[in-house]
């Protein structure tokens, strides 16, 4: 069944199919040009009128109290830290997933399970510490 599948693709008898990054680079360029062009066009087309009240930050109709850029609450940092922990793990899992699918050795599986178990301990610790409670 699968052998007859038609999609042009990669890992074939002819060896690994190269990744084409050039089109990606082209798309990046075109996307940025599109965005900048849209903004430029809009800036040219629209009218402009200024005034002191219009210039002031929007604070629901009252004169702004204090500064908007203050220290954040520590909660946001904590989320970022936990995220970092897990995201590194996810990135490590990707190559493992591809490799494990290819050879399916029990050793690879056990290795990753040990790695995940260590992370799970950290996860439980974070939970117990109340990091994952947001109230």
């Amino acid at each position, binding site marked *: 069944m699968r052998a007859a599948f038609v999609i042009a693709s990669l890992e074939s008898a002819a060896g690994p199919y190269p990744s084409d990054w050039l089109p990606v680079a082209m798309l990046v360029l075109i996307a940025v040009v599109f965005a900048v062009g849209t903004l430029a066009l809009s800036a040219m087309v629209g009218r*402009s*009128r*200024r*005034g*002191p*009240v219009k210039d*002031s930050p929007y*604070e*629901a*109709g*009252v*004169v702004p*109290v*204090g*500064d908007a*850029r*203050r*220290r*954040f*609450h*520590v*909660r*946001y940092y904590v989320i970022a830290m936990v995220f970092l922990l897990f995201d590194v793990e996810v990135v490590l899992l990707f190559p493992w997933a591809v490799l494990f699918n290819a050879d399916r050795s029990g050793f690879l599986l056990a290795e990753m399970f040990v790695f995940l178990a260590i992370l799970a301990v950290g996860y439980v610790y974070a939970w117990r510490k109340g990091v994952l409670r*947001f*109230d």
Partner: protein
Amino acid sequence: MVSKSRSENVQIPIGPQHPALKEPESFLITLQGERITKSGVRLGYNHRGIEKACEQRTYIQAMYLIERVCGICSHSHSTAFVQAVEEVAGLQIPRRASYIRTLIGELERVHSHLLWLGVAGHEIGFDTLLMYTWRDREVVMDLLALLTGNRVNYGINTFGGVRRDVDAAQMEQVLKGVDILEERTKYYITVATDEVTLINRLSNVGKLAHDDAVRLGAVGPTARAAGVARDIRKDDPYAAYADLDFNVVTATQADVYGRTLVRVGELLESCKMIRQIIKNMPDGPVTVKAPRKVQAGEAFSRYEAPRGEDVHYVRGNGSDKPERVKVRAPTMANVQAVAHMLQDGYLADVPIVIAAIDPCFSCTDRLIGVARESGGRGIMTWEQARQAGIEWHRARGIDFTRLNETFRCGEPR
């Protein structure tokens, strides 16, 4: 560029111009993360001087003006005022008139509660509920238009009775409409009691315990949701309520969810009452002759508006104009509880907590006493007040007197 302040607290103003509020009022919320540590309310953005204006109008003119205190519970204010004047004047209105007043009052409650349900849905990002309830609200609005000629500001009251009678065909229509409304209300009760996301979103939000509700003087559904069975229709029956068989709906949750349950419960009770009124509608005239001048005397009148107890005070001096009119709208009693409810809540809950008292800020806004710098209360002339405002803003870098120069003829600066 980060501010040097070590505090993690952020002060966020909600209002006067904010999408969460449908009327201008200002709540200043102090946040730590997403949690509220302090909140304050500032009234007075929408003061219209109606009380004072009544003193310069005849009673009948004042009655129409009072009806415009609120766009939603207009009949409540008008009835409360008329009741007070009738008490001063010593008028006894016909039974049929009191039944018609009660009928309009209950229809108004249905329309107000449906409106609230929609607004509450909107505040938690559930616009479909808004569209549904406001569609169903059309039914009761049409009934009110059929009975009074208007969808809001019904103008049905007059001193000594009501201005329009209700005929059998109209009552038949009302009964048909009530059937639809009751069926829809049952659907909303199912939504409110079965929909887990809705329950989780509303439960334990804006807590106001029984004792706090009593202490802070909460009224209406806000108090009843905390288990305070306070309802003027039972406690001090007016109009035809003494003849009606109905229950005071209360809840034990003491949170926004409880307030929702109380309001949907009251919708059912109102439907029940409307049926009773129509079934027992007495025959007879709908009005008695009322004098143009009202004798000297004063009266308090209480009315259970959809939002809670509405209090009107009228003092007559023998002329055709009232000497003093005082309105205490239900929101005035409830708004003090809002700060308490917001305490330790989330920023995300601010809109629904404020909305849960069904606020009507233009009814609430009173004249603000101006404190002199030397201490003590004083009176400012209009010009002084204007100048003080300009200087207050100028000290903060905005010169309103130069706005016209800046924006003259729409030319860019």
